[in-house]
């Protein structure tokens, strides 16, 4: 890429100038000063070679356009999706419910207020035919101003195979309404989001941990949870393990040297 217009003469020498020994490093070469004419000649030769190469490339290009898999991949772009039919319908039915609409890689993402998620989901299911909740998950952005978590709802409509993503920003410690009453599928998905992120879903039929055990201390997919894990004995052995994890203090545990 960058050798289209060489600023310095290339290190390799043309075979006619075989004066320098093979494998000579540029620094060794620099020790033998070249006269101005030699330098100018070399630069001119290099330029000529570069121009030749460029011309050859230019000549080769039009005859065979490269297939897309040989081109450098171009990532998709973000675009505004306010004209999306479902975004328009949702905004018309529930004013103020669409904060932003984004289209990326062919997928529409609507930003919605977390406080109104239940009515928005209900409308999309019953009014717009999104009968299938494909996925529900969360993302943790610890430093973000508008709230730490993003709740993601990924909906599907069978009639025209349309998929729609809802994204609701949520502050830490703020409960959000459960959609388990809207789609039954949401039950376990919300339990997983609760387990992994500590998001509390109000009105959920049985919000318990699902992937970790009931005494687990912490929410593993939060960014501040260490990848190597924590000592999770704290919740069931509070007298042995200090709350919040960490090794047990000196002298704790039974005579045999460990908790029960």
């Amino acid at each position, binding site marked *: 890429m960058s050798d289209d217009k060489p600023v310095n003469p290339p290190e390799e020498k043309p075979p006619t100038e075989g004066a320098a020994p093979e494998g000579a490093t540029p620094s060794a070469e620099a020790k033998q000063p070249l006269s101005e004419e030699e330098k100018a000649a070399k630069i001119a030769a290099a330029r000529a070679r570069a121009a030749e190469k460029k011309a050859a490339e230019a000549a080769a290009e039009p005859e065979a356009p490269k*297939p*897309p*898999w*040989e*081109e*450098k*991949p*171009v*990532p*998709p772009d*973000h675009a505004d999706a306010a004209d999306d039919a479902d975004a328009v319908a949702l905004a018309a039915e529930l004013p103020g419910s669409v904060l932003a609409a984004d289209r*990326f*890689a062919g*997928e529409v*993402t609507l930003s919605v207020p977390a406080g109104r998620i239940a009515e928005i989901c209900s409308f999309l299911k019953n009014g717009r035919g999104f*009968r*299938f*909740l*494909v*996925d529900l*998950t969360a*993302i*943790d952005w610890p430093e973000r101003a508008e709230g730490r978590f993003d709740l*993601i709802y*990924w909906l599907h409509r*069978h009639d025209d*195979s349309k*998929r729609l*993503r809802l994204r609701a920003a949520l502050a830490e410690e703020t409960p959000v309404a459960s959609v388990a009453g809207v*789609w*039954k*599928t949401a*039950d*376990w*998905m919300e339990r997983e989001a609760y387990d*992994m992120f500590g998001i509390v879903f109000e009105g959920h039929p049985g919000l318990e*941990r*699902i*992937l*970790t*055990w009931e005494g687990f201390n912490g929410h*593993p*997919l939060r960014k501040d*949870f260490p*990848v190597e*894990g924590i000592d999770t004995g704290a919740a069931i052995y509070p007298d042995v393990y200090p709350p919040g994890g960490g090794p047990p203090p000196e002298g704790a545990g039974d005579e045999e040297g460990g908790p029960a």
Partner: protein
Amino acid sequence: MTAPEKSLFDVEEMEINFGPQHPATHGVLRVKMKLDGEKIMEARPIIGYLHRGTEKLFETMDFPQCIPHTDRMDYVAAATNNQGFCVAVEKLLGISIPPRAAYLRMILAELQRLASHLVWLATHAVDIGAITPFFYTFRERDAILDLFESYCGARLTLNCMKIGGVPFELPEGWVERCSELVDGFNAHIDEYENLLTENRIWKKRTIGIGVVTPEEAIEWGLTGPPLRGSGVKWDIRKVFPYDRYDEIDFEIPVGANGDTYDRYLVRMEEMRQSVRILRQCLDRLPAGPSMARVPKILRSKAGMVYGAVEAPKGELGYFIVATEKGTAPYRCHVRPPSFVNLQALPLMVEGHLVADLVAVIGTLDIVLGEIDR
């Protein structure tokens, strides 16, 4: 005479645990049940015994490094897991793969679907009491695993796809060996069907068990054969074609009654369709490169994508959130089909007998590796 003691048989409702260490739970699934005699009044699946924090691990790894970890989710269908992750990352980075790579991926994925369905059939039949199909299916499964082994060196955790294509060219004679297997496969499916389809015990144990209506199936988010067994014609390969499935001619089999027997028929027909897809792929396998030109270090643009494939068990989706110029996923969520399908277990077993629970777990075809991640 003293007052009559309460008899052991007067117990109204009994609470028992099924699993987590039980051969018929297909892994470490635990089902807490309330029984009235042998009738299940309430069933509650408890999962998480195999949780390994894979989604957390993804956040610490570059995109290509994640692929071997996807093998360990649905460990009887590693190729479709690889495919799902690659499809999602390619969508995120705008990579298009060469036709030969797409066809090789489809061949591997369909072989994997056959292998996975063979494991399902073997274990499902053993659970219900028919041990013979096990020996038949594992004979063919072994031949498929041999093909995988000669392609990528592994039999189960394949790691056989790369972002931008497939990592290896086919070894010499592979297409012929695969063709031979594919051509003889329908005869093998007939053998299995001879053992089961009209078997009176098999029908007694499966017809009318675990019935799911199409509305319930959609409401509970079922995908894959459990959804199609209820009569909903829906397959990711047709709805959102990935790789080159849009160039392939195949049918989506559906059931009528949504019971265990129909799901069995759907999967048997799916195997025939896989054979049909394999035949077409092998006949049309294009020449050319098997890898796209991708940068050595993959850097993403800020955004989120969801890439899904039709895994043998249903819709397998990878939801990837990327940051600007990130080399690793900021968040990678897996939507495993078994996790969502298992959730409908109480719906399917309540009111049935304990022995039917085993049949329903078998018909859901769950793998705990991808449920617990």
